[in-house]
């Protein structure tokens, strides 16, 4: 493999001296397992795991670490990582004519056999195009040369593959653990020049989860709706049947610089059985699969020993529903008594059991607790199927604050289907009631320090949820609703943050987009859009111009209620849940809305 192009240390130094956090662009981490350059031969398949956000955000991603481990444990495959260079680094690279390179061996991306992007949300789409361009590769798939690397993407934001299909050779829908190796095995034939790209794609097309955009044609009617998708067959999502058939990552790459979640992360359960009607993750990761707690304890100890982390985080979509939680926490606590281990439990449902678990992991060090009532009125919580009552919330607040917690964070959504001004006033009043209750429950001397953070997000109807047909509320109305909350919640002790309504509108249009959305994404990127999820970098005008120039209307994707018999852009994917199930959930919600009037 002497045709691998790499970036020299000297050239890298030229750009690193003037950028912020240069530690993002070097490797030298513990846990790196890529093959050395000199150990690669003609049989080696080189895969770049590309994360379209900065190192600090991408490194804690568990999927990245899982695939990295699987690929590198194979003797003929080598995986290296690459993240989106921050804006200062991009500028320096473009000025110096340096192309995008991987961290481990500084291999130019064009020299890889496969580049796989992890798409965690839609606002990363433009970063993918930018990274391809920085690599000297054409973002548009059909313009790429036959000798170019195969480009693919996975993650929650490709469950609707349509918007990014113009840029990808294939997509991987669902769990990647068991699909990646068969794909790379077939790739070695393609790279050896034995078979063409078309043949390679044909060969992998039978694998679960492999979606090949070029195999589909979307036909649109004069009115702009999808008339027909050819062929009609659906791609079945890849799903690992038994999580325990893959050990957890016990030798992750340990970042040298601080990341957004600097701790040892362990997935204890995949999928969620709750069925909140707005929650995409709650449906696309089904069925619910748990790891065996007894087996996990040993693996966690091994991971902690290998990494030296003093904090472990148990990941799942609904940690309280994990049957072995108490056993896991107690078992691990017992075995790490003198190691000063702290544990964290994100995605806890705060009922009495949840609180007991939160207390069990905290052991004296109590900081913040997060509640997600999502909506203020019981009517609204019933509509979205968020099964929690105000009594439960209040009981939990009483108990938590009485036991020493001091900070509370609340999550709410606005713009939910059927939501009225009255519901919003109830949200505002619930925030006030929680604050008052919390202050009362706190021991007197601490009361002065009381503060509460409230995060208000715009509801985004997402594919593969019962609300996938619903319209996103108009910006003017959303702004009015924010105003109502701000006007009715006293500023003292309560900090309210909310999402940018225009960014939510773009995100929603992208997530429910069809194959024509690719033109908009391309145009927006050309207009300078990138890092759209970063408040300081989101450029609404770049997007507005892109929609206009592509003859597309963002509101006809975001602000429109999709017809329940309309062909949906994501009808090409089968996640294992029938449309009828979503329809019935949507129907129930609509019924409740009607009944309320």
């Amino acid at each position: 493999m002497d045709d691998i192009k790499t970036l020299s240390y000297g050239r890298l130094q030229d750009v690193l001296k003037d950028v912020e956090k240069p530690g993002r662009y070097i490797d030298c981490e513990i846990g790196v397992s890529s093959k050395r350059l000199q150990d690669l031969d003609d049989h080696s398949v080189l895969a770049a795991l590309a994360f379209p956000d900065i190192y600090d955000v991408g490194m804690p991603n568990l999927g990245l670490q899982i695939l990295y481990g699987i690929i590198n444990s194979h003797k003929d495959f080598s995986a290296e990582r690459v993240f989106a260079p921050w804006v200062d680094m991009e500028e320096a690279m473009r000025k110096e004519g340096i192309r995008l390179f991987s961290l481990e061996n500084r291999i130019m991306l064009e020299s890889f056999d496969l580049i796989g992007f992890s798409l965690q949300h839609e606002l990363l789409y433009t970063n993918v195009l930018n990274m391809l361009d920085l690599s000297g590769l054409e973002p548009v798939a059909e313009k790429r040369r036959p000798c170019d690397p195969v480009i693919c993407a996975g993650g929650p934001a490709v469950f609707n593959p349509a918007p990014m299909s113009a840029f990808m050779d294939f997509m991987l829908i669902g769990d990647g653990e068991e699909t990646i190796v068969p794909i790379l095995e077939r790739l070695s034939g393609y790279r050896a020049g034995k078979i063409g790209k078309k043949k390679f794609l044909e060969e992998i097309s039978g694998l679960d989860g492999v979606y090949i955009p070029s195999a589909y044609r979307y036909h649109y009617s004069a009115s702009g709706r999808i008339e027909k998708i050819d062929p009609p067959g659906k791609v079945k999502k890849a799903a690992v049947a038994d999580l325990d058939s893959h050990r957890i990552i016990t030798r992750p790459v340990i970042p040298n610089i601080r990341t957004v979640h600097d701790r040892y992360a362990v997935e204890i359960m995949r999928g969620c059985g709750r069925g909140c009607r707005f929650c995409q993750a709650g449906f696309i990761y089904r069925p619910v699969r748990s790891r065996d707690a007894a087996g996990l304890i040993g693996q966690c100890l091994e991971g902690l020993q290998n990494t030296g982390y003093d904090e472990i985080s148990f990941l799942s979509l609904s940690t309280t529903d994990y049957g072995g939680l108490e056993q896991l926490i107690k078992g691990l606590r017992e075995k790490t008594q003198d190691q000063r281990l702290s544990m964290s439990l994100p995605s806890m449902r705060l009922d009495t059991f949840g609180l007991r678990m939160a207390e069990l992991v905290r052991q004296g060090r109590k900081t913040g607790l997060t509640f997600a009532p999502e909506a203020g009125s019981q009517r609204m919580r019933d509509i979205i199927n968020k099964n929690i009552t105000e009594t439960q919330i209040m009981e939990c607040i009483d108990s938590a604050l009485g036991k020493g917690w001091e900070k509370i964070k609340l999550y709410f959504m606005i713009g939910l289907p059927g939501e009225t001004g009255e519901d919003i006033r109830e949200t505002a009043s619930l925030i006030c009631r929680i604050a008052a209750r919390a202050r009362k429950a706190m021991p007197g001397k601490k009361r002065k320090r009381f503060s509460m953070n409230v995060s208000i997000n715009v509801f985004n109807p997402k594919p593969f949820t019962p609300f996938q047909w619903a319209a996103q509320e108009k910006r003017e109305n959303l702004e009015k609703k924010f105003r109502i909350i701000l006007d009715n919640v006293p500023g003292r002790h309560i900090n309210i943050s909310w999402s940018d309504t225009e960014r939510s509108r773009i995100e929603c249009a992208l997530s429910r987009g069809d194959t024509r959305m690719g033109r908009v994404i391309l145009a927006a990127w050309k207009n300078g859009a990138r890092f759209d999820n970063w408040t300081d970098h989101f450029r609404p005008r770049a997007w507005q111009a892109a929609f206009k120039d592509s003859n597309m209307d963002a509101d006809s994707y975001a602000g429109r209620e999709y017809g329940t018999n309309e062909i949906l852009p994501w009808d090409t994917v089968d996640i294992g849940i029938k449309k009828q199930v979503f329809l019935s959930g949507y129907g129930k919600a609509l019924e409740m809305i009607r009944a309320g009037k």
Partner: protein
Amino acid sequence: MEKKLRFRFSKTGMLKYLSHLDMINMIIRAIRRAGIKVKYSAGFNPRPVITFGPPIPLGAESEAEYADVTLTENISPDDFVSAINLKLEQKVIISRAREIPAGVKSLMSQADIAEYEICLTGDRTGGRLREMADRVMQHQDMKDSVYQASAGGEKGQEEDRIIICGYTKTAKGRNDRVFKLRDLLEALERELSGTDISIERVLKKQLFILKDGQKLTPFEVLRFYV
């Protein structure tokens, strides 16, 4: 039981792009990986009891980073060194550790001087470097914070580096400025502009404690505590 160790480590190559805080976290994780028991501070948010010497700026390499750690197990300094080196990336090497008696002042408050070597490349004459070093010494923003500056090189070779000792803290009647490597490098870049000489490498060589006019390393100073 408690035992205090002082150790020296290097930070070379690419790792010069890591911040002081990143290095601290890296060392702490390596100690935990090695399974060595460290004392934790009391209080609300317990942290390992480990203190580091003065930080060096991002972009500079070092052969002389020092830290003092309090352990709760009896391990010999040599075993400590080899256990941790096994758990570290090769560009960080713990080169030495010594037990320190109780009562030794913290590195941060003890250290007086850091010695840096600034290696230059290009066509040069030793005379010019010496001149430059002198000018830097006399520069009014600089002179107050510099203890010593000279030109140096390999034995028998032309001088190709500036060696500069700067104060890491202020002291009444001695210096009222702290040496800032970044300022020096900027001044040097200005001096070098228009010449074909450029800075190749910046390396921290040693950390010193001043005792009766003598420069002692953080290890040498320990003999005064026995």
